[in-house]
């Protein structure tokens, strides 16, 4: 194959195929070895893996904290840890799990999978993607370094004012918490914007909205939820920082501020956040069910509508966190109804998965076991959620261990079980290796039974009057047995997680021989090699159904004509995914890291002086200008048909 003559640029297809194409694409898209390339890479798959590994490390740290708390609570009036330390522990546990594990790990899965599922070569705004990882890392490190230095936050992951305000939380603990929230907001917003643009504009030709894989739908909905909910917490944590640092009085009731303002703004973010964590689980489960039941999930339109309606309802029920605050009764009626209404789309989803199992030919490999564990656990959590939506019940159950049980059923059952199933399912795609099936089944049962033992007794602890966030409880209230059971269960669950990581580590040392589609699945991500090449697809696939690999078993139709000597993406139309433009994709650069370092310095310094925002804006702006410096006329070209 010779160099193209004249104005003809080298493009994939017809004359360029096979090894030669691979080598030239790899030269264009690949990340060469070496530290500099590692730092400057903008490959969505590499950044996703960093995100996932980091999030798992934070999960382990947060999990260790929960074990220490469970030891403290195993017996009444235990003196193992001081109240101050305990309050740091539960604040760090909640903050770490929500901000540093659950949301980032779900977004990281989408960053890896979405471009592969929709058949494109890169995520949109790949440099922003690199930037978001560095910012996320900085926020997490800030929080944990503070904790290790014994200045970790201690006002709860929800940081209610006035307890978190300047008067009752002196020192820098709460400022560190609030600024960590800022870091994770920036990171999450960046990823969400990338995902929305990728999903709406980079789908393979023919992948109309009604042919989009369910996980892509879920990613689209959760990304929009992040975009609409994060500004609320950004605003309120900004208010808090400003109250603490420059003496504003947003939350001070004695200066015409309002303590409840915080709760409204926080939960307007905080409740959608729960669904931002849970909905990706819906996506994972749908894909696992389809693959292992050999049948696409029933009623695709109903599933999509269910996901979208949960996304909408999520913004209408934040006040159910505030039933005890004494707001007007009539308003409560709306939030009760909205909270209960979530049971309808959730019920539709559960129906569709079970019916798919019924009608298909299920094979109970580890990922499908996680789905079964998920349905059992999540339905229980959902039903206790219906209880909590009822004002008279909530006024008793609110802020007790019943609620602790409820949201761990929903978050671990509804999000972590599907996530572990998804790790097992996509592990070959990420690494080229299969996880051990035998070990996987042992792991599942340990996790499942350990979970039930840890969290089921908490329902009773709550009914017996145990409030949340207490570092100890008196003997004689009947709380001894339930708490001891929870502690034993927590250690069993931790053992299960350890087995999972052990399985992954052992599998990683095996030879990469998984093949591109080990489960015989239907989605485009299984059309590429495992692990995928840097450019994902040698040719952009063309899609004519929801299950392309099942319907075109012999030969997936492709589209050719993208440049191979430069990074070029195919842009398609929003609704019908018709080929529209060829657009250049950014090359690797270290500027996102430099911009992240400048931003980090500005954020951290602003904990100590508000002037840091002014001074710190200069290096940040300089880094951004260098990052976006125009490199010549690179305008999108129309597609050559």
């Amino acid at each position, binding site marked *: 194959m010779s160099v193209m003559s004249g104005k003809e640029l080298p493009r994939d297809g017809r004359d360029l195929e096979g090894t030669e194409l691979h080598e030239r694409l790899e030269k264009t898209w690949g990340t060469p070895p070496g530290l500099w390339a590692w730092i400057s890479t903008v490959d969505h798959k590499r950044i996703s893996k960093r995100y996932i590994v980091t999030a798992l490390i934070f999960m382990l740290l947060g999990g260790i904290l929960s074990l220490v708390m469970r030891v403290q609570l195993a017996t009444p009036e235990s003196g193992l840890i*001081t*109240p*101050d330390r305990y309050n740091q522990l539960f604040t760090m546990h909640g903050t770490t799990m929500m901000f540093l594990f659950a949301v980032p790990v779900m977004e990281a899965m989408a960053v890896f999978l979405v471009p592969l599922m929709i058949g494109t070569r890169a995520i949109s705004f790949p440099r922003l993607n690199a930037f978001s990882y560095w910012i996320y890392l900085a926020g997490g490190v800030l929080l944990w370094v503070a904790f290790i230095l014994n200045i970790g936050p201690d006002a*709860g992951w929800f940081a*209610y004012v006035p*307890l978190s305000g300047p008067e*009752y939380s002196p020192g820098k603990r709460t400022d560190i918490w609030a600024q960590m929230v800022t870091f994770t907001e920036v990171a999450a917003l960046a990823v969400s914007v990338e995902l929305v643009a990728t999903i709406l504009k980079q789908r393979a030709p023919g992948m109309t909205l009604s042919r989009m894989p369910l996980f892509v739908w879920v990613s689209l909905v959760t990304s929009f939820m992040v975009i609409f909910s994060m500004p609320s917490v950004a605003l309120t944590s900004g208010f808090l920082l400003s109250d603490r640092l420059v003496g504003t009085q947003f939350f001070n*009731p004695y200066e015409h*501020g*309002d*303590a*409840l303002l915080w709760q409204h703004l926080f939960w307007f973010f905080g409740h959608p956040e729960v669904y931002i964590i849970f909905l990706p689980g819906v996506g994972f489960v749908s894909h696992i069910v389809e693959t292992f039941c*050999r*049948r696409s999930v*029933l*009623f695709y339109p*109903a599933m999509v509508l269910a996901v979208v309606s949960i996304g909408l309802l999520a913004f209408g029920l934040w006040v159910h966190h505030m039933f*005890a*605050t*004494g707001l007007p*009764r009539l308003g*409560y009626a709306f939030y*009760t109804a909205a909270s*209960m209404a979530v049971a*309808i789309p959730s*019920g*539709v989803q*559960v129906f*569709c998965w*079970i*019916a798919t*199992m019924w009608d298909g*030919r*299920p094979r109970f490999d580890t990922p499908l076991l996680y789905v079964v564990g998920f*349905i059992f656990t999540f*339905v229980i959590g959902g*039903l*206790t959620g219906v209880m909590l939506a*009822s*004002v*008279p*019940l*909530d*006024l*008793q159950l*609110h*802020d007790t261990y019943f609620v602790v049980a409820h949201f761990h059923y929903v978050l671990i059952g509804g999000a972590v079980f599907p996530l572990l199933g998804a790790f097992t399912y996509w592990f070959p795609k990420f690494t080229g290796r299969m996880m051990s099936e035998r070990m996987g089944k042992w792991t599942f049962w340990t996790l499942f039974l350990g979970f039930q033992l840890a969290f089921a*007794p908490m329902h*009773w602890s709550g*009914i*017996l*009057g145990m*409030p949340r966030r207490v*570092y100890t409880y008196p003997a004689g*209230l*009947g709380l001894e*047995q339930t708490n001891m059971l929870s502690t034993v269960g927590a250690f069993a669950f931790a053992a299960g997680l350890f087995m999972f990581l052990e399985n992954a580590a052992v599998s990683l040392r095996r030879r990469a021989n998984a093949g591109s589609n080990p489960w*015989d699945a239907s989605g485009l991500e299984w059309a590429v090699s495992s692990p995928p090449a840097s450019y994902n697809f040698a040719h952009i696939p063309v899609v004519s159904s929801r*299950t392309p690999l*099942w319907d075109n078993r012999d030969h997936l139709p492709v589209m050719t004509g993208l440049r191979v000597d430069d990074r070029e993406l195919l842009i398609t139309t929003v609704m019908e995914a018709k080929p529209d433009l060829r657009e250049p994709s950014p090359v690797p650069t270290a500027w996102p890291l430099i911009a992240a370092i400048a931003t980090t310095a500005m954020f951290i310094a602003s904990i100590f002086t508000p002037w840091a925002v002014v001074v710190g804006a200069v290096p940040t702006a300089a880094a951004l200008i260098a990052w976006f410096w125009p490199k010549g006329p690179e305008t999108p070209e129309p597609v050559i048909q």
Partner: protein
Amino acid sequence: MRRALPLLLPLAGCDTVQSMTGGDGRQGALFNDLFVIFAIVTLVMLALVLTGLIASIFRRHPAKSSVPGENDEARDAPFRPLLIGWVALIATGLLFLTTATYLTDRAMQARAPANRLLEIEITANQWWWDIRYKSSKPWQTIRTANEIHLPVGIPARITLKSNDVIHSFWVPNLAGKQDLIPGRRTDTVLEPKRIGVYRSQCAEFCGAQHAHMALDVTVESWADFNAWRVRQLTPAPAPATPLALAGYNYVTTRECASCHAIAGTPASAQVAPDLTHLASRRSIAAGTFPMTRGHLYAWIADPQGAKPGNNMPVVGLEPNELHSVIAYLETLK
């Protein structure tokens, strides 16, 4: 139905002084009824889901064509009526539960008759409860701390305020929670139906000693309540022994009096719990310890060791001072 709730609690064994299953107040009993309704409906729904799940797992799946995903859309159709029926069932269940919720909520809110026999103002502080029994006659106002007494069968109107951060007032045996929010005034009604002693605990995280912010609730007959009220209206007796007198002198002239009040003595500061009838209470330090001489010693000698982080400083009493202070405090019945 009221008896049914404990049946759902195999581990509970019996009702305790801090249990939602108590149903010892009007709202608490209504809660129990509603909880049982919800428990039945949700358990039925759970059973339906699990039946479907187990049936789908263990069903003998026909070995259809080996090609996955064949005719999937066409095969969806037979399930359509089932899905519609399932959604209708969920919607009906939710409608039923929502209606039950509204009716129970209204029943709970039904205000007590206009004769305001009992009006209590509770002010939360980090980490103790300031209690005032209000009266139109100032000399009949009672101030106490960390305990309330209620006559059985009579609705008590309770006004809730906070001096610092957000707390939540909750007597699980009697009624649900109500937050105490600085800058706002909230209220609730307690209507105890059974004589007994109960325990209330702060239910909103409020800082270092949130775990040790309890309130003793005594529900008693009208006669017993009145006797208690009359006793609370009396000022502290003069110390009778030399040791108690030494204690009196210390308490009313040294550090103690800068925060605490004892009616009938010069000690009249309002920032800490009222001590006038300290020794008649069931517990010390907002339900942290039972009221015994040993615990009183431990508390006065080293409040920071006994309840770390609380606002009572370590005064550093000499042993003889400590003995005399305890001797005096024990006379405050």
